[in-house]
């Protein structure tokens, strides 16, 4: 107490005799400081918001149509989320009775109309340049895995549905594609190349990721992606490409239909 009084005396020397502020002056002074900073920082916050809201769109490439700073945040979030990702984290599964009888269908892009299942081949582009052309019967012979889980659409709806097919990791092992899993990404496209997705390798190799050829224990109907579609429970529906025509592997992010339209590339769950 004594010390502060002394200090006060020292510092107030230049300003002449120190006059204690009365209550009214104190109130005015404190209000001025508080409301002043409130106004200044409030304006700065508003300015910051306007800057963000009117910030330019990113240059269209693998991703597009998002505000530039927001795309940077989506990509940064992906880095954080990937740290949390583990193939041991499984999507919850349900008993068969809970699976929807009528499975919701949202989009036809790349899988319109009918497909000639017998003529259909899945083409897998290996890094050596070699291309495997695989018929649906060959895939059906592989060990079958079924999953009944809550399918989640980026729009917000979810539905418990029942899918059957071959695990992507079993498919990789059977066709001796282990070397390709060293790449960072898997790209998949529909035969007409109208719809395409890129999936990071860890998610593709997740034990619940399927190349599905059945829904509710029956062969996929055309609208659900006959004869073969991707079922990847660690991603939103937008990554679950229907009617797969080709699979490729790369270290750069493969093109992705919805990432080009402002959505998060990772889209992981």
């Amino acid at each position, binding site marked *: 107490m004594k010390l502060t009084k002394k200090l006060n005396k020292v510092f107030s020397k230049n300003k002449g005799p120190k006059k204690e502020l009365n209550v009214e002056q104190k109130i005015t002074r404190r209000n001025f400081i508080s409301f002043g900073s409130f106004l200044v920082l409030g304006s700065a916050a508003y300015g910051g918001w306007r800057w963000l809201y009117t910030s330019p769109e990113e240059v269209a490439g693998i991703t597009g149509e998002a505000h530039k700073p927001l795309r940077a945040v989506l990509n940064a979030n992906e880095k954080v989320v990937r740290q949390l990702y583990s193939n041991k984290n499984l999507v919850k599964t349900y008993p068969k009775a809970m699976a929807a009888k009528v499975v919701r269908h949202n989009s036809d892009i790349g899988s319109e109309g009918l497909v000639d299942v017998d003529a259909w081949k899945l083409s897998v582009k290996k890094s050596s340049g070699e291309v495997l052309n695989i018929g649906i019967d060959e895939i059906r012979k592989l060990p079958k895995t079924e999953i009944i889980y809550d399918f989640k659409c980026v729009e917000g*709806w979810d539905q418990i549905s029942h899918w059957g097919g071959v695990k992507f990791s079993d498919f990789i092992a059977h066709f001796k594609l282990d070397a390709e899993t060293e790449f960072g990404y898997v790209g998949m496209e529909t035969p007409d190349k109208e719809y395409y997705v890129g999936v990071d390798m860890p998610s593709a190799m997740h034990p619940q990721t399927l190349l599905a050829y059945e829904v509710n224990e029956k062969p996929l109907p055309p609208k659900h992606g006959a004869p073969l579609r991707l079922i990847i429970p660690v991603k939103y529906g937008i990554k679950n490409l229907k009617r797969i025509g080709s699979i490729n592997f790369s270290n750069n992010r493969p093109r992705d239909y919805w990432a080009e339209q402002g959505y998060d590339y990772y889209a992981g769950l």
Partner: protein
Amino acid sequence: MKVIKEKHPLLMRWTHWVNFPILTIMIWSGLLIYWANDTYTFTIFGVTFIRFFPQGFYDALHIPKRLAEGMAFHFLFMWFFALNGFLYVMYTIISGQWRELVPNRHSFKEAWLVVLHDLHIRKMAPPQNKYNAAQRIAYTAIIVMGFGSLITGLAIYKPVQFNYLAWICGGYHLARIWHFVLTIGYVLFFLVHVVQVVLAGWNNFRSVISGFEVIDEKPQPVIQIQNDETNQKAE
């Protein structure tokens, strides 16, 4: 004689005001997301009372067809929302301010008296320190709700990686509904809050910016009355 009485510490004032625009942006971007699948209704015995939301509401706020944008904003401001809430809670705990905030064993009875008083049914207001009993309950509840939004939000954001959070929320589907209900709760809280602030007047409002209230204190009597009731009203 006018006396300055300290009320809200700086950090509590700032986290309060920082939260306001952040929550506004979270609710707005949440609406951009919700629009993409606006299926929630309030239905009892097959009668739908409320459908969220009328088309005019969406159009007036330019909500439609902005899902991707909504998600991008939501997943940026979620960080600020969480950080700001964390600061407030940590400060409240460390500074001991929680004693003024968390309801005590009298609060639930007294809160009822506060409500009666505010509705002009009862003349006497129950004793008030920094917060009255109703405020203690409301302001603690809103913090718990904020925590709820964080948990349900994470459960929706990464339901497989945070599958235990999704489980706590009763699954992904239910987590989304809780998340939505909490937001409706904020809006209702806000409406009551603003009315109460307006009714409480300038002195109270200023204290959330300047930190203090000005009270008119009568000259001290020689004999100090033990239970000093400074019955200033504050919301």
